[in-house]
């Protein structure tokens, strides 16, 4: 899984002034031809910086996202669900490893990214700052948060940076299992007893607002990123991703007899666009800046794993070993 609505740095108009215009033109021509950029190629500083930021946020989201789901492994109903959820959580942590490696090829060591995460310097997907109260919450995450992630990841896998695209192709292949598993879990509850249906509906009600936030602020109010679109760093706007998600999944939610807690949600048959109540972007901002129900817990748990695992790493560290960036 993964959060959309990446937080990009605000860019100064002068950001490109120091770049060699000839190299820059060749770089842009390569992207226009649809070729991938590889780690050893020349690239503008701004491209490197924004990509590191985006891939790093994506990696952190996989790690932090595995916490609310991981919590449900021992309490999942039955052996088969436990096995499946364990496999899914393992996949998510594996996704983080792939993504950290892709970011490392741009020059930021993995340990530095982890340090920035546990010090609260890096962002991750905002949706994981909310708690998973019941098994149905875990099912919602597996199906619909992953579905949202897939919309983002498929778009990004067509981007310009080779190592990121290759990581995303591997990730997307595994996401199809997550999506089917999650859907299977939700179907089971939604078509089950009255109590099961109510539990599933309560989870949809709890998670709808964070789900709408998931793709990031509406294009009307988000930072302009034309240059990132041109360089194929950002492949689809926040609103495009949100629309695609609604189009694919709202009918699937409705067909299970579940409702969505937004009376304004409907597809405009003329424009083909989904209409909905404007999400509360102030709440989004508040939570992403640290004041959500689980921000402190998520970081504390990750930090504790790092601290309490230190002796293992130290015991294994060979004195002469030296870190190098991965090749591709």
């Amino acid at each position, binding site marked *: 899984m993964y959060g959309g609505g990446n937080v990009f740095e605000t860019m100064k108009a002068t950001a490109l002034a120091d770049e060699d215009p000839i190299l820059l033109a060749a770089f842009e021509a390569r992207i226009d031809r649809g070729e991938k950029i590889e780690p050893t190629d020349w690239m503008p500083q701004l491209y490197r910086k924004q990509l590191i930021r985006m891939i790093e946020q994506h990696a952190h989201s996989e790690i932090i996202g595995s916490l609310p789901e991981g919590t449900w492994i021992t309490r999942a109903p039955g052996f088969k669900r436990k096995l499946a959820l364990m496999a899914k959580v393992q996949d998510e942590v594996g996704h983080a490893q792939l993504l950290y490696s892709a970011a490392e090829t741009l020059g930021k060591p993995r340990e530095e990214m982890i340090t920035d995460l546990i010090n609260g310097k890096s962002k991750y997907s905002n949706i994981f700052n909310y708690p*998973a109260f019941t098994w149905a919450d875990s099912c919602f995450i597996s199906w619909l948060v992953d579905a949202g992630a897939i919309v983002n990841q498929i778009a990004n896998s067509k981007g310009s940076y080779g190592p990121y695209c*290759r990581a995303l192709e591997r990730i997307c292949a595994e996401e*199809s299992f997550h999506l089917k598993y999650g859907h299977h879990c939700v179907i089971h509850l939604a078509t089950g007893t009255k109590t099961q249906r109510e539990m599933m509906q309560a989870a949809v009600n709890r998670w709808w607002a964070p789900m709408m936030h998931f793709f990031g602020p509406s294009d009307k109010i988000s930072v302009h990123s034309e240059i990132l679109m041109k360089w194929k760093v950002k492949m689809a706007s926040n609103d495009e991703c949100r629309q695609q998600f609604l189009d694919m999944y709202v009918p699937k939610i409705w067909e299970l007899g579940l409702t969505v807690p937004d009376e304004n949600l409907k597809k405009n048959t003329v424009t083909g666009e989904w209409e909905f109540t404007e999400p509360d972007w102030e709440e989004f901002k508040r939570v992403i800046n640290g004041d959500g129900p689980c921000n402190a*817990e998520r970081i504390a748990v990750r930090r504790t794993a790092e*601290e309490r695992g230190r002796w293992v790493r130290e015991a294994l560290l060979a004195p002469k070993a030296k*870190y190098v960036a991965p*090749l591709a």
Partner: protein
Amino acid sequence: MILKSLDPRVTRLSIELSPDESSVAKDGLDQFETYEAFVQSKEGKPFEHAGPVHAPNEEMAFLFAKEQYSRRGMFCNAICVIKTENIKVSEYTDNGQDIYNLVTDHPSGNENESFEIFHLMKRGKQHKHEGSVLAKDFDDAMAMAKKEFQSDKPVFNVWIVKSAHIMASEDEDKDIWDTLKEKQYREATDYKAADKIKAFKENQA
């Protein structure tokens, strides 16, 4: 303040919520070495670069690579790992130019060490094993590779590694990937539910 979580196991960790600064800061990076992992998808197919892993030594790199790049065993026949710093990377060419055209040395004929050659044929793809050569050093191996492997298809980039620096899975251990039957739950195909939805809808109608 001690963290109280919805998950009793997290609460039992007794995590102090406002740690002093020193416990957060890491003095220096304690990152492990980097290895590149390669996967052979089927018998007879070339090994292809899958991606990197970090590990404290070769054996653990091998185990991590197996978990990371072959845990769905159906696409794997063998894997190998190579420490990244042992891979010699050629220049990258552009505009369809063959990297071997930039090689001017002639093979020395001094064949005292075995080297493995990996080719990258297209930007955005991954390196594939092409074959091995006997040579005296890396430059000599590149010259030998030109002699052995240059064709009319341009090669965009070459990786060369001493054969002794590769750790590969053993043929006799191949059954480690034969886990498909017990691990169906890892596959999307194991979660069919169309009938259930259909029955539900009919019931509602």
